[in-house]
Every structure is written in C-alpha cells, then in structure tokens.
C-alpha cells in the first residue's frame, strides 16, 4: 500500500467512526442553527484528529501535508454527508488569503486557529448586483477616512454571511482609473456597526446566501490586505488558491446507481423502465460521461503524486457534471410521471432527484457560470480571442452603467 493509500484508509476509518455523531441520520430534523452547532463540533473533532488544515503550514496550526492528502481526505469525507459545508468558503479562500497576505502575524495565527476549530467563520464579499462574472465591475466603494477607510455599498450571494465573524472584501477605492486598477482588498468585521446581512431565500427553500449592506462602515488601514489599487491581483489569487479540489462526477447530485435503481422500480408500458431503450441510452451516455470525468480526476491525482502539474482538462468537471445532473434529474422526475410531484425541501441533493433538480441551476452559476467556464476554456486553453470588451481602457466612472 502506498503512503497515500495508507492515509486514505486511516482517514476513511476515522470518518466512519464519526458517522453516528455527525452523519446524515444524526442531523435529521435539526434547524440550521442547531445543525451549525453540530457542524462546529464536527470541525473541532477534525481539528483534534489532525484533519483540519491538512495542507497548511504547521506554524499556523495546519498539518503540513500535501495537496494530495487534502483531496484524498475530502473525497472520503464527501461520502458521508457531514456538516462541513459551513466552513467550505471560510477555509477554502479567505483564511488561506489571510495567511498569505495578512500583515499582523499574531492576529493572523489567532484567526486561523479559531477558523480551523470551527469557532469563527469567514465569508468572501466579492459578487455584487452589478458585478458577478465581471468581478472588476464592482461598485461598493471605500473612501479614505482619517487614517482608515469608510465603506459604502452592497454585496450579494455571500455564503453563510449571517453566521460569519469576518469577511474578505474587494471594494473600489478609485473610480477615476480603469476598472481593475481602482480596487483594494480588505478584511472586515461582520459585526461592525453599519454592516447589515439579509438572507436570500433560494428556489430550493434554503437561505445560505445573503445580501450584505455596508453603510458608513469604518475600518482602520491595518485591515488592508493589498496595496491601494492592487486589490484585483489579490482577488484573482483568492480564486486560484484551490486549483484542484475534490470533485464529483455526479455534479454533487445523485449517483447514477440511484437512477438505475429507480429505473428498475418504475414500470413503463407494463415493463420495468430499465428495459426501455430510451432509459438505457441515458444511463449508458451518463455512465460514459461520468467515467470520463473520473478518469480525468484519477489522472490528475496520479500526476500530482508523480510531482507533475495536472492538465487543464480538470476544468471540465463542474461544467460537464452539473449540466448532466440537471438533465438526469429532469428525466428521473419524468420517469415517475404522476408519482413525481412530491418535494421535500430538507431532502439531500445527493439522494433526492427533485431536490437535485431544483437546486441544479445554482451549480451551473456559482463559482463561474457555464458561459464563463466556456470562455475560460476557449481563451486560456485553446487560445481563442477574448470577447469584445467596450470597457477596456476606459476609466471606471466613464463606463455607461
């Protein structure tokens, strides 16, 4: 057994032992607040067992291991439905950025440890009503105010903001220069006066994303994590931090086995649907697509293990998997006909076709829409021209709103 396989086995055994306390069954029927409390305990258990900050430096409380161990653990963890998602953004981007760009090392270390133990949660305040895919188009502004700054404006789609202690934020500090030159990167205290968080209820019924309003929020200059006007580079660095994360060829929806089970149960024209050619074709095509993604991931892991850099084809995962999840979920509902109307907004997207279907659009938008990903593949991998950008070279305050 390779070292990595030994690591996987050990992690899998530990995760298995956590199922009775933190697994899906144990969490059934909890409110979000109760579930978050369980989540914090689970995060603490991970920290105590040495599975928090797996690939982070030991000086900040990490384990000092490699990226492979991290992805291996995440892949195993994903199988159980633990309440780890509350900390996904926090530990995924803001905290690594804080470690890299935070100037006060003592302060940074304290925050990192508390975040690793699940005691504090951070959010990422990037998207705005007028700036989603066009990150540099944001309008929230910070003006010099004494020896600090004053923030005004609105952010949106901020995951878990209602439970967050801190956030990282990109704001406009100079509207007179081209759009991506006038941005600066800060951290903010989410409990500071003038910060208002308003949850947004999504189609699936949950409210994990928020609008966040900044109304004369005052921060000192030591909150600044980039040079003034140098925020765009740090924002891009944030987005580049996790280049290879645990993936799911099911697009974080139900496994194909569940569709096969359904097709065996449901009768179509008096015969099990699994005997229907249309259903068989969809199963076969989906299997081929998913096995392709799994092979891409397996190859990327093998390359990392060999000290090589994985190819860019890993970028296909989200694009291909979520689209197919959406269509397969539609088909699963279709297959049930008049038996397919039911909906339970507490059902898991990984196990319930209706929940998977109604939440699938989020997966095609969050973290880069299909269209943005296609542009990235076309421009960065295939060398096709950039889109026509009329705002190029134009000072921000002269771009037609």
């Amino acid at each position, binding site marked *: 057994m390779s070292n990595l396989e030994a690591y996987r086995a050990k992690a899998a055994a530990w995760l298995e032992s956590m199922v009775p306390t933190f697994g899906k069954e144990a969490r059934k029927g909890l409110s979000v607040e109760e579930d978050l409390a369980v989540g914090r305990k689970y995060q603490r258990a991970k920290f105590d067992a040495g599975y928090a900050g797996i690939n982070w430096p030991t000086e900040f409380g990490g384990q000092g291991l490699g990226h492979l161990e991290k992805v291996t653990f995440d892949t195993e963890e994903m199988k159980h439905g633990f309440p780890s998602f509350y900390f996904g953004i926090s530990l995924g981007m803001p905290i690594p950025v804080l470690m890299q760009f935070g100037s006060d090392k003592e302060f940074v270390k304290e925050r990192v440890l508390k975040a690793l133990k699940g005691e504090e949660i951070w959010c990422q305040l990037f998207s705005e009503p007028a700036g989603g895919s066009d990150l540099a188009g944001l309008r929230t502004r910070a003006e010099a105010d004494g020896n600090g700054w004053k923030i005004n404006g609105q952010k949106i789609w901020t995951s878990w903001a209602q439970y967050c202690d801190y956030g990282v934020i990109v704001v406009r500090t100079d509207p007179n220069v081209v759009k991506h030159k006038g941005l600066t990167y800060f951290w903010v205290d989410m409990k500071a006066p003038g910060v208002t968080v308003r949850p947004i209820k999504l189609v699936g019924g949950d409210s994990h994303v928020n609008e966040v309003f900044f109304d004369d929020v005052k921060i000192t200059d030591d909150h600044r994590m980039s040079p003034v006007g140098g925020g765009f580079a740090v924002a891009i660095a944030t987005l580049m931090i996790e280049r290879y994360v645990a993936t799911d060829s099911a697009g974080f929806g139900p496994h*194909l086995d569940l569709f*096969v089970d359904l097709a*065996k149960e449901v009768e179509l024209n008096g015969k099990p649907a*699994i*005997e229907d*050619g249309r259903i*068989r*074709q969809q*199963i*076969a*095509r989906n*299997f*081929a*697509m998913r*096995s*392709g*993604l*799994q*092979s*891409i991931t*397996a*190859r990327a892991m*093998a*390359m990392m293990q*060999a000290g*090589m850099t994985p190819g860019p*084809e890993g970028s*296909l995962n989200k*694009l*291909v998997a979520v689209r197919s999840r959406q269509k397969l979920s539609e088909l699963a509902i279709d297959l049930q006909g008049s038996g397919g109307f039911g909906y339970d907004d507490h059902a898991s997207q990984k196990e319930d076709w209706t929940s998977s279907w109604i939440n699938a659009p989020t997966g095609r938008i969050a973290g880069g829409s299909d*269209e943005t990903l*296609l*542009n990235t*593949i*076309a*421009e960065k*991998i*295939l*060398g*096709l*021209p*950039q*889109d*026509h950008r009329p705002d190029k070279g134009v000072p921000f305050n002269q771009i037609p709103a």
Partner: protein
Amino acid sequence: MSILYDEGQQAIATESRRVLEARVNKDELLPLLETTGRYHDGFWTTAKEQGWTALALPEAYGGLDLGLIELGLIAHQAGRSLSGAPFLTSSFGAAKAIELYGSEEQKAKYLPGLASGETIGAVAFASGASALPAAPAVTLADNRLDGTATGVSGGLAADIAVVFANSSGTPALVIAELAGARRNTIDSFDNSRLFADLVFQATPAETLVAGDAARDAALHVLALQAVITAHEQAGGAEVMMEIARDYAVTRKAFGQPIGAFQSIKHRIAELYGHVELARANCIHAASREGQADFVTAAAAARLSATEAYDTASRDCVQIHGGMGVTWELGLHLHTRRARSLAIEQGNLFFWEDVLVDRLTGEAA
C-alpha cells in the same frame, strides 16, 4: 497498468505522429474515395516498417509484447492523420482472437504473418444491425462455413477472417481463409475502409471456441478492437477541434476573428470537453485490459469517442461555412471516417446495451 504515459510510450506517440504527418496527406486520401478496393498502402507499409502490426502481439510469435496502451497511442495518431487502414484494428482483432483462444498450431500458423503485416486479418461478427447476433447468419457444419457476413471492415483485402458462426444452434468462433470465399464489394461513403460482404460457400474453417464461451470470447475481441477504434476516433476528434480553432483565429468577419464570437468559441470549447472525455475514457479502458471491468470501460470509451468524433467533425464543417463542404478542403474525409468508425466494431446501440447490461447485471 498506469494511466500516466511513461517516456517510452510518449516516444511512441511522438514518433508515430512525426512519421504519419510526413507520409500521409489529404491529396493521397481523396482519390481513394472515388474507387472501391483501394486503401492507403503507404500507411500499411509504414505500419509494417515501424513494427506497429507486431506491437501488441506476443514475442514468441514475432510480436513486441506491448499492449493496448501502446497500440492505442498509434491509433490516436492514425486517427489524426486519417491514415488508419482498417487492418490496424481488424488484423489486430483477428490476431488477438487467435492468440487468446487458438491452439498452439493455430497460433504458430497465423500469428507470425499477422505480426509482420504480411497476413491481413478481418473480424466478421456482425449481421446487419446486430454486432453480435443471437443467431449468426453464417453457419458452421463439418468444419465448413456457409452464409454471408455483412459489412466486414477490411474484408476486400483480408487473407483470413475470424467469424462468429452458428453451429447447430450454439455459437462458435472460427477462422477461415478467405481464398475460399467470395467478396461482394460495398461501394461506401468511406471507400478506403474496404468494406465487403463475405460470402461463404462450404468454406473450410477451424474452430477457436465453441459453445456459450464463444459469445464471451467474441465480445472480448470486439472490446479489444473497440478500445483501439476509440483511440482512433479520439485522435480524429482532436484534430477536428484543432482545425476548427485554427480557422476561427484566422478567419475574420465583421472586423474581427470569428473565434471572438461566443457562438463559435463556445462551440469549440464544448469540443474540448468531448475530446478530453473521450481521451480519458480511452486511457482508462486501455489500462483495464485483463480486469473484470474491461468490457465496461471499453464500452464507455467507444460511446464517448463516437460522440466526440461525430460532433467535432460536424462542428468543424459548420465553423468553416461553405468552404467546409468542398471536396478539395477534405474535411469530409473526417465526416466520413467519423461515421464509418462509429459503426465498425458495434454501433452505439450495441455498446449502450453492453454497458447497461453490465451495470445492471441483467440483459434487457
């Protein structure tokens, strides 16, 4: 078997690409379409010289003892250059059938010739829409074959064929020398594949496997060929994507490269997805030879590679506009090849069923 190519394997890919790019061009391929019975003999000469025919066969019979991964790499390059004479898969399939299921005498008799490329093999399993018919149209009695095997790839040039036959109600996998068979030429949309119906009339044949094991054996041979064909398809899809990309960055309309229009650039980005999924499935399938899930992996490779090649050749033509449908430009060589490869060694329906049977543990 590793899913990362080692240095030797990478050298095979680089060298075969270099050789094929130097020796094959579309002006030699276009005339092959206008008559029947001709193939790109430059390719086959090259394949013999380079030892590609011997690559995946045992050393004891003149082979090089390499495997699906190495032959797949060459097939990928052959797919890029459109040069794959059908024998790359058909001779390989026939040789593997003999290697895996033949007697010592049969191996000694046929394998060295197939390894050197002097003997050309064909695989004749299909009967119309069925790649592996429940009741094969060719019957075996007293070591003689009767009946017609339809649409045999390479059938016009093959010296021997491995045939899936019906022997008093049970299947049998047999070898027949084709000197004793009639060949009815099929005038095809891809004439360089040498498709023929093989008509057996009391043609002498030797049995490789008889009884129910013959069906499993035939499916295994088809799966081996399918993996090689899928590599060829992935190579074809890849080059179609590249040609589409190259055209989109040079051709201008409305004052800018057409590749700046999202309708074009997204179409090409989608092709990248098809190509990479097909490639990943091909590499995976080649690495699963000898494992329990080999046929499943081969089926997945076949499905994604067929979709990739059809889509890429279709979209590449569309991106070229009117020029794309001219005889001279030659994109249609790929359009044709995409379809002929799609129905050689089992069509999509066949592999979809094989795959679902495997996944559900039962046949429909």
